[in-house]
């Protein structure tokens, strides 16, 4: 049967191509660039999937009752007032911080540039914690860029195409972020476990000073995430007799499975680091 034999031949050829693609993807960094251009092919699908959500928001905004709008407006004004009060205090504190840093002769911390971006898709594979945002390298996103939401660190950009980027969340099983305990600056690394509710600190000794309720902030070590943003809150510290390391679980403060508006952070220092890496 001639047709059967050509099917087998084709099967072997396509199988070998696939396997070599997988190996190339694991081995070579150049695949990033190829992927960036190939991803353009699936961008329309990502946009189409987001259409119902977007049109619902659009409709909802236009059909809202006047009273509701007025109430919402009032509430937002109140919130702004509260936020402004805090910002006033913050200005004074920032100045004080600069003065103290001057006294200590330490380098100044520059304010980071922020791009607001919107989530347009999430990965449907439960083993991969990734979201897709509607900023690509055309609007300034770059690989390695930290991503935050209103309440904490979300993750980092792992690949960009012209109009969209993929963000790996901090809870992905492949992700780890350097953190420190806000209370006493104890340093550690928070690993993702592939579950939306947990991060794990694997390298704290049994006697380390860490308690349930401690806030973990990004430590800035590793030069990827800027210093001082909240990452997670410790929810369980388990001391196991006979083990050298304690088992510490923390819950991310960012709303990883809810936030729709995200922030892309850009520090000048980081931009340089990644450009050097690229060269």
């Amino acid at each position, binding site marked *: 049967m001639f047709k059967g034999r050509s099917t087998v031949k*084709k099967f072997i050829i396509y199988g070998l191509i696939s396997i*070599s693609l997988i190996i190339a993807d694991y081995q070579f960094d150049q695949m990033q660039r190829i992927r960036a251009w190939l991803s353009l092919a*699936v961008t329309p699908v990502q946009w189409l999937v987001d259409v119902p959500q977007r049109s619902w928001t659009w409709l909802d905004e236009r059909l809202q009752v006047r009273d509701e709008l007025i109430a919402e407006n009032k509430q937002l004004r109140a919130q702004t007032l509260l936020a402004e009060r805090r910002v006033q205090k913050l200005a004074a504190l920032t100045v004080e911080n600069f003065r103290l840093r001057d006294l200590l002769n330490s380098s100044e911390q520059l304010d980071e540039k922020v791009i607001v971006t919107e989530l347009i*898709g999430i*990965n449907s594979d439960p083993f991969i914690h990734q979201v897709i945002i509607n900023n690509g390298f055309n609007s300034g996103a770059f690989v390695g860029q930290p991503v935050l939401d209103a309440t904490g660190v979300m993750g980092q950009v792992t690949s960009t195409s012209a109009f969209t980027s*993929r963000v790996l969340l901090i809870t992905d099983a492949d992700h780890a972020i350097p953190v420190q305990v806000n209370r006493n600056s104890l340093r550690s690394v928070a690993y993702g476990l592939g579950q939306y509710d947990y991060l794990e600190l694997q390298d704290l000794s049994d006697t380390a000073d860490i308690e349930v309720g401690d806030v973990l902030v990004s430590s800035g070590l590793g030069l990827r995430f800027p210093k001082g943003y909240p990452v997670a809150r410790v929810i369980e510290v388990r001391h196991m007799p006979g083990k050298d390391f304690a088992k510490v679980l923390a819950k991310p403060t960012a709303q990883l499975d809810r936030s729709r508006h995200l922030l892309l952070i850009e520090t000048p220092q980081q931009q340089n680091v990644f450009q050097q890496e690229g060269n």
Partner: protein
Amino acid sequence: MIAPRSHNLWVPIVTLLVAFMLSALPMPEWVQWGWPEWVLVVFLYWVIALPHRFGLGWAFILGLLLDLLQGNHIGVNALAMVVVTFFSMLMYRRLRMYRSWQQAFVVFFLVAINQCISYWFQGIGSNASSGLWFLLPAPISGLLWLWLFVVLRGIRRAFKVA
């Protein structure tokens, strides 16, 4: 038939596009675990119905697109789709004779093979482990087949896809 035959190949392509959209739809986490492999199941129907049009080349391209859409390592889904399509091409004549629940059973096995391949190759070097839950889409895709087969056959006959 004397009238010029049109193959209406755009119909399967539209159904595949819809399958892509369904597979990329954002879902709550517990639904994601059991979300059927839409693209694979729809494509399997077209392979069994029109094996002279849809073969390994299509499987490879669709798998690549799925990899790009899901952010997998490039080639993982392509390999899985090619393997599963190869099996179904070997036995499409037998499959056509089966009753629909027997077909659903075969689809269950094919999707399970697909899941194993993509799970193994995707999981190299990561520390995720959640038992055998990654196989959950297989029985659900099998159940989906019972319904999808009727729908797609209706579409194929209505549009005279050949």
